[in-house]
Structure formats: C-alpha cells, structure tokens
C-alpha cells in the first residue's frame, strides 16, 4: 500500500464522496462524519508521503502501471508536498468549522470531498492533460459548493463563476493541444525536454505558453480575469468561502508554478524575456488593482476577495522572478496566504453570526463584543500586511530579496507599494474594530441571520478554535520556513537550473 500513496491521496476522497450520497437513503446527516473520517485518512496518507519524500526524495508513480511517459505520472516533490499538506490541513479545519456552521446536507459533503480530490489531483499530477481533468473536477465541485448558499444570488454567482471558469479551463486545454502538436507528449518531464528540442521561439510553443498560462490565470483570479471571485466568495456559505478562498486559487497558482518550472522551465523564461515580462506585468497590475479595489469596498468579504487578487498576484510575481529565493518566498506566501485568508473568511463568518456586522462600517466597536474572533481577525490581517514575525512577512521579504537580486526593479516598487495598500485596507478595519463607536446595537445580532445556510447564529467552540488556530499558525508557521526551504532545495534544483 505504501507504494501507492500518491494515487491513494486522490482515490480516497473520491470514494469518500460517494458514501454520503448512498447514505442519503437512510439519513441526511451522515455527511459530516464521513467527510471527517475520509479527511483523517487523507491526512495520514499525506503524512506518510511526507515521510517518504523527506527520506527518499521525489516520489514518482505510474498510474495503472503504464510505462512512462505514455501513462499518467504522479509526481510528489517538495513543492507539491507543501501544497498537499496544506490541502489536507485546511480541509480538516474547514470541516471543524462546518460542523456547526453548516451546510449539513449530505450532498454538500460529497462535493466537499470531490473538491479535495480535485485539488489533491492537481497537486500531485505530472501530466498536463490530467491536470486539465482535475482542474475541471475542482471547478465543478467549487461551482456546486458556491451554489449551496440558501439565497438564489448564490446560484447567480455560481453561474458566473462557472462560465468564466470554463473559458479559463478551455483555454488551458487549447494550450495543451498546441503543446501536444509541438511535441507529441503530455508528460510534464518529457515535455520539458521536447519543448526545448522544438525550440522556445517556435510559434506552437509560444502559443501553448500563452494559452496555458492565460487559462490558469483565470482560475488564479489575476486582474482583469478576477471578476468571478468577489461574487463567488461573498454569496457562498461561510464554510465554503473559507474553503475555496484558501485553496482553489492557491492550488491553481501552484499549477501555474508547476507549468513554469516543470514544463516550460526557467530556460524558457530566460530565452523568451517577453513571456517573463508579460507574466510580471499581469502580476504587478493584479497586485495594485486588487489592492485598490479592496480599499474601495464596504463589504468585508468582498474586500477579502479583492485582497486575494492582490496577494496571489504577489505569489505569481515571485514565481515569475524565478530565482531560488523568490520561488521560496512565493511558496511561503502561497501557503501563508491560504492559511490567513481562510482564517479571515472564517473569522468574518463568526463576527457576522455574533454581531450581524458585514460591512466595514458595521465592524465599528465590535472588537469588544466578539473578542476572540475579532482578535484573530486583527492578527491575521496584520500577518497579511506582512508585520514580522508573521508568515506574511517572510514570504514578501524573500520575494523582495529575489526581485532585488534579479534586478527587477518594477517588481520591487510594486511590492513595497502593495504592502502599503494592504495596510490601507486592513488598518481601516482594525481601527473600526477597536477604536470606533459601535453602530450596531446588540439586538442587531439576531436581525441578520438570512445569509446563513444552517445552524442559525450559534457559534461553536470548534469554529472559534479553527479561527484562533489559523491566527496562531499565521505566526507559528514562520518557524517551519527553514524546513520548507530544506525541502525545496533538496527537490527544486532540477526545476530551477
């Protein structure tokens, strides 16, 4: 069984996803238990895999035993391991949150597990077409989850997400077609050598790069392809927005990095400076525009969504700089952002339940009314700004150092500006929370319960624990950076030569 770890990581959640549907014949509340059990198994498998990668280096697995590069390969190296661990940990956290916050339907947990399967698959796959399939599984599950909100506006947000997301994935597929035409292979490792043989300046290769990266940018939600994101995050149930804000864009950004380093390789970026500059430009515009849009929002969840546009732009900028230190920084920020953003959405959900506040104005004076959630929210927000010793600082710092080393001064300027802008929108919230007169009276708490799918306005210990844990992790993860660095230097050099 130990040899089959990479494929089991995908198969276990898929199998788990079928159980709640069958269980619906007998009870409609079996979903949570099944999902929790499945995710515990998933976490154990991820831990075993981590052990394998740390002792034996990169793990490669041929699905169905078909000879590589013709069969589908699953590859787990330091980068994918970090993301697999992230998916596993955040899914468990979201489950602890959803236990009280809902939704409680069996079908919700089926989609939840399907999403986990899709995300894990995207992370471990070493095949560009397989990546497309998992991208679509992730997409389908995410559309369904967004639509699980009780309001019909959730369906509108989900449809918008579906149409834009499908165009993104289709463009990626078209890019795969061009790569296939240029090389005749779909395996990532094989592609990296054959693309070089086909010539980096060949039209086929350049088109493939543009379409694949463009398609994934839609899924990452880089500006101006982000328009699906604020609606999807703001209209879905709190558990869902915490989950997809933490993982869906994150794993897509990981997939983009995987394309850059494992398929097109750094030599391509050096050989075609226009490609690198295009990526840097899109990322930089994303950083600035995302922050500017976040500053102008009054709804807190929409602000957090636009903040994601900006922060993931930062991650992509780090990957585009493509020096080892910048890639480390981007990976740290990728993981850190996922933990912090998930935590922020979860905290905003608790604040809404306890006080009814959903807007920046409404947050006024709520610091004392919901001390734990507001305190965690403030810590996470400061972490996102990049106040040391939080993980947000380490990620940004490494990206900055990498950009300076590479002499990419526009990126340096944008990075510093973005920190200021991030401070602008989060400081405003912090000021409201702790130093402003309350605008919502106590009975307001019960008035605004409409947004919730289930569970009313009660907040469980589990929900609070998740948020506090996210805040603690936002600081404590800094201690894990050296271990991550070790892992990346052990497994990344082939990607970065």
């Amino acid at each position, binding site marked *: 069984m130990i040899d089959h770890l990479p494929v089991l990581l995908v198969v276990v959640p898929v199998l788990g996803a079928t159980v709640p549907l069958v269980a619906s014949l007998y009870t409609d509340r079996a979903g949570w238990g099944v999902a929790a059990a499945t995710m515990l198994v998933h976490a154990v498998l991820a831990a075993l895999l981590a052990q394998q990668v740390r002792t034996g280096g990169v793990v490669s697995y041929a699905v169905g035993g078909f000879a590589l590069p013709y069969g589908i390969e699953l590859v787990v190296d330091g980068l994918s391991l970090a993301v697999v661990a992230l998916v596993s940990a955040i899914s468990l956290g979201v489950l602890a949150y959803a236990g009280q916050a809902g939704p409680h339907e069996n079908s919700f947990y089926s989609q939840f597990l399907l999403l986990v399967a899709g995300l894990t698959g995207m992370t471990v796959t070493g095949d560009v*077409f397989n990546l*497309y*399939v998992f991208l*679509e599984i992730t*997409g*389908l599950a995410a*559309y*369904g989850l967004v*639509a699980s909100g009780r309001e*019909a*506006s959730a*369906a*509108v947000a*989900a*449809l918008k997400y*579906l*149409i834009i997301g*499908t*165009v993104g994935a*289709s463009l990626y*597929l*078209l890019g795969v*077609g061009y790569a*296939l*035409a240029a090389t005749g292979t*779909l395996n990532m490792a094989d592609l990296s050598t054959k693309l070089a043989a086909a010539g980096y300046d060949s039209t086929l290769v350049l088109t493939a790069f543009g379409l694949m990266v463009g398609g994934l940018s839609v899924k990452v939600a880089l500006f101006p392809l982000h328009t699906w994101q604020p609606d999807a995050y703001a209209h879905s149930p709190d558990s869902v927005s915490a989950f997809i804000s933490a993982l869906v864009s994150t794993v897509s950004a990981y997939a983009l990095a995987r394309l850059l380093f494992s398929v097109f390789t750094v030599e391509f970026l050096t050989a075609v400076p226009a490609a690198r500059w295009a990526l840097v430009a899109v990322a930089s515009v994303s950083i600035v525009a995302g922050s500017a849009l976040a500053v102008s929002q009054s709804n807190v969840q929409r602000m957090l969504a636009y903040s994601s546009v900006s922060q993931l732009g930062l991650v992509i900028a780090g990957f585009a700089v493509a020096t080892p230190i910048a890639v480390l920084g981007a990976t740290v920020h990728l993981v850190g952002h996922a933990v912090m953003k998930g935590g922020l959405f979860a905290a905003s959900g608790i604040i809404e339940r306890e006080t009814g506040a959903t807007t920046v104005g409404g947050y006024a004076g709520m610091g004392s009314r919901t001390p734990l959630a507001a305190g965690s929210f403030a810590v996470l927000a400061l972490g996102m700004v990049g106040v040391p010793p939080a993980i947000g600082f380490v990620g940004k710092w490494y990206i900055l150092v990498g950009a300076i080393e590479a002499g990419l001064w526009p990126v340096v300027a944008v990075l510093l500006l973005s920190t200021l802008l991030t401070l602008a929108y989060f400081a405003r919230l912090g000021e409201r929370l702790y130093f402003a007169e309350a605008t919502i009276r106590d009975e307001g708490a019960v008035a605004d319960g409409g947004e919730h799918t289930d569970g009313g306005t009660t907040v469980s210990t589990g929900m609070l624990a998740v948020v506090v844990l996210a805040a603690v992790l936002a600081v404590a993860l800094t201690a894990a950076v050296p271990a991550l660095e070790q892992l990346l230097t052990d497994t990344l050099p082939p990607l970065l030569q």
Partner: protein
Amino acid sequence: MTADPLQLDLLTSRYNYYAVVLLLGIGLYTLIESPNLVKKVIGMNIFQTGIFLFFITLAFRSGGNPPVVTEGGGPYASPLPHVLILTAIVVGVSLTAVALALIVRIYSEYGTLDEETLEGLYYD
C-alpha cells in the same frame, strides 16, 4: 512558405482549422455578447466544440489507417487525441448539466433569463 503552390495548399487543405477558428469565435462571441443565460451556455458549448475539433484534427495524418494494430497496417492516425477528447466531452456534458441546473434555480427565483434584468434584481 514562399512558393505559391504551398500557399494554395495551405488554403485548400486546412479547412478543418478554419472551422476550428470559426467555432471558437462564434462560441466566445455568443458567450460574451448574448444577454440570455441559456444562450451563453450554448456559446460555451460551441467554444468547447471548437477545441474538440482542433484536437481531432491534430490526430489526422494523410494515408493513415485507423489505429487497430495489424501486421503491415501502418501508418496509423494518432489515437491519443480521440481519447483525450472523449474525456473532455464528458467534462463538457457535466459542466452543461451543472450550468443548466443553476439556470433553472435562477429562473424559478427571479423569473428571468435575461442578464441585464437579472443584474437589476440582483443588486437590489
């Protein structure tokens, strides 16, 4: 590509690719421009069909036989794109199903399929 016959050849023998470009264009235009949600989904389908046709065309080789391996049967058309597109078609069908389910929900709630009317209701 300087010789005339080759250019003529390009024009006459690559009509599959023109169909691909046409389908992609029509699909994307409908998806963006039509205010009707169902037509948007139809546009999405046409767009995907363009991509499917592109892959299938890639598999073609002149004089190629169906890829059923027999002695002296080669050269064969590439079977790989067909398999990929079978998968992609399944994905496309699931996406259409989910999209239509969402549209049913939207229609039953708002009573309209028109994007602009919907936006007016939605942001109230």
